[in-house]
């Protein structure tokens, strides 16, 4: 039988260390909605989402009440819209209408975000992929709840540099389209290399074509819990450090597994995966940067940061993997800047640069995330940043991503406030030397060699 010390430990994690279930994300396939008639397609999409996700928010709330664990977000991911709208959409404006249909459906069922306004480009863009990509600035400016993602490359087939170049322009156009709101549209837009089909986290969630009709994926989080556990092993060996992270990660993930199973049962929708990520929030004590400091760095960005993050990321996976029957998504440590007070402090102190963040993305989950850059950054430079990150993912057989926000009208020395879970961020400098001639080359970077790993 459960004893009082165990009960106190769990409740302390929840009440004092910000343990929560970050998201219950329902993945919904829209493949059966496809029709060449745009109006009919919009109606099909709206109806299917409302039918499938009608009880999602209520179920999430009742699970939170009964188990005493906060469930912060209830979200939906859908089949990449470039696939769904391919036969009905003839211009970018047609795709925007689909974004608005998604937004209405998300508002109707009460979820926080809906992801899947996406195109899966790897080798080259289809006609529909390009139309959707060109519609992104307007789609994100005219909706509140829609998140967009574009896959640009993979380890198997290489990187489509035509799409990378176009995304440099699209990120900038999205910033301009939401310039009156500190370019917040870019916070809902991410590009990937090796995008996973079952990621429950935004902005990159979509319901991959390898998935079933409807599925429940859960993302857990608990950087504060790991930080607290490490406080008790200061100065201990790496063995003790790693064991402590693993045990904590196991406990955190078990909560995710329970919530995922329960949500799946109550909604009568199959359980997909638990994404065992350490996802920070701007709340004090809910920070991955603080864990790095607890491991022994004065600030994230100091020499040793990449090694400390590599260790953390690996132990989180090792601890979590046994705690859940199915692990997937992005699983690892997220290092967004604006959403992590410790990262923000490190940038403001001059400890953390864009280049160091890039190095850190080689060993952790995802990539350059929620980084505010000057609004005057050129589309070519943004494309160059994206290409670098895609190359890291392609060569290292991992998922990488870029979510940068060129804040129109702001420069280094300014700060930007996004509010809520998106947080606030100082504008970070971008290397001012040009990569224009590089990213202007047409075509794609070929698939990498899979041997001679040096």
């Amino acid at each position, binding site marked *: 039988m*459960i004893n009082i010390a165990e009960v106190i430990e769990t409740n302390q994690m929840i009440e004092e260390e910000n343990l929560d279930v970050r998201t219950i994300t329902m993945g919904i396939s829209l493949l059966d909605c496809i029709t060449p008639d745009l109006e009919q397609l919009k109606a099909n999409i709206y109806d299917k989402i409302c039918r499938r996700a009608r009880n999602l928010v209520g179920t999430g709330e009742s699970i939170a009440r009964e*188990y005493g664990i906060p469930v912060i977000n209830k979200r939906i991911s859908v089949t990449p819209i470039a696939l769904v709208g391919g036969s009905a959409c003839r211009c970018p404006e047609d795709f925007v209408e689909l974004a608005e249909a998604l937004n209405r459906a998300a508002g109707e069922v009460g979820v926080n975000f809906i992801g899947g306004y996406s195109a899966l480009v790897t080798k080259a863009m289809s006609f529909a992929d390009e139309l959707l990509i060109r519609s992104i600035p307007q789609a994100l400016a005219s909706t509140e709840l829609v998140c967009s993602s574009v896959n640009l490359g993979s380890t198997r087939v290489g990187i489509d540099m035509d799409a990378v170049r176009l995304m440099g322009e699209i990120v900038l156009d999205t910033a301009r389209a939401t310039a009156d709101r500190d370019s917040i549209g870019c916070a809902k837009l991410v590009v990937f290399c090796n995008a996973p089909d079952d990621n429950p986290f935004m902005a990159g969630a979509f319901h991959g074509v390898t998935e079933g009709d409807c599925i429940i994926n859960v993302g857990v989080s608990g950087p504060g819990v790991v930080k607290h556990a490490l406080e008790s092993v200061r100065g201990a060996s790496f063995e003790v450090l790693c064991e402590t992270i693993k045990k904590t990660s196991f406990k955190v993930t078990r909560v995710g597994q329970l919530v995922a199973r329960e949500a799946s049962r109550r909604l009568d929708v199959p359980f997909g995966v638990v994404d065992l990520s350490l996802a920070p929030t701007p709340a004090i004590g809910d920070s991955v940067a603080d864990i790095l400091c607890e491991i022994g760095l004065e600030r994230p960005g100091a020499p040793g940061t990449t090694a400390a993050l590599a260790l953390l990321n690996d132990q989180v996976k090792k601890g979590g993997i046994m705690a859940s029957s199915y692990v997937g998504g992005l699983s690892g440590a997220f290092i967004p800047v604006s959403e992590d007070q410790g990262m923000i402090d490190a940038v403001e102190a001059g400890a953390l640069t864009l280049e160091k963040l890039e190095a850190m993305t080689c060993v952790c989950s995802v990539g350059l995330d929620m980084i505010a850059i000057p609004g005057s950054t050129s589309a070519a430079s943004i494309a160059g940043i994206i290409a670098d990150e895609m190359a890291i993912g392609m060569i290292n057989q991992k998922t990488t991503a870029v979510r940068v926000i060129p804040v129109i009208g702001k420069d280094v020395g300014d700060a930007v406030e996004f509010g809520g879970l998106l947080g606030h961020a100082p504008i970070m400098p971008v290397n001012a030397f040009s990569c224009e001639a590089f990213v202007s080359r047409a075509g794609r970077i070929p698939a990498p060699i899979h041997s001679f790993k040096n």
Partner: protein
Amino acid sequence: MKRVIVTVVGRDTVGIIARLCTYMAEHNINILDISQTIVSGFFNMMMIVDMAGATTPFDVVAAELEACGQDLGVVVKCQREEIFDSMHRI
């Protein structure tokens, strides 16, 4: 059996257990175990109860016990047992 863990955290005072036990009896909730300890100067009590025969739904019981706690100056929380089992038992 529908096990629920009821926790009480706050300043120790006369009648906490009596009040909660009376509530349980009135709503046909069976108490399986009670234990208590002091952590950082705070009174911590835990009750394991079986709500299978409860005459009132979980959400109502949780809200009413929380209100009881406010009267007594303590925080009362009801959680289904599975969250603790999941975290602490393989």
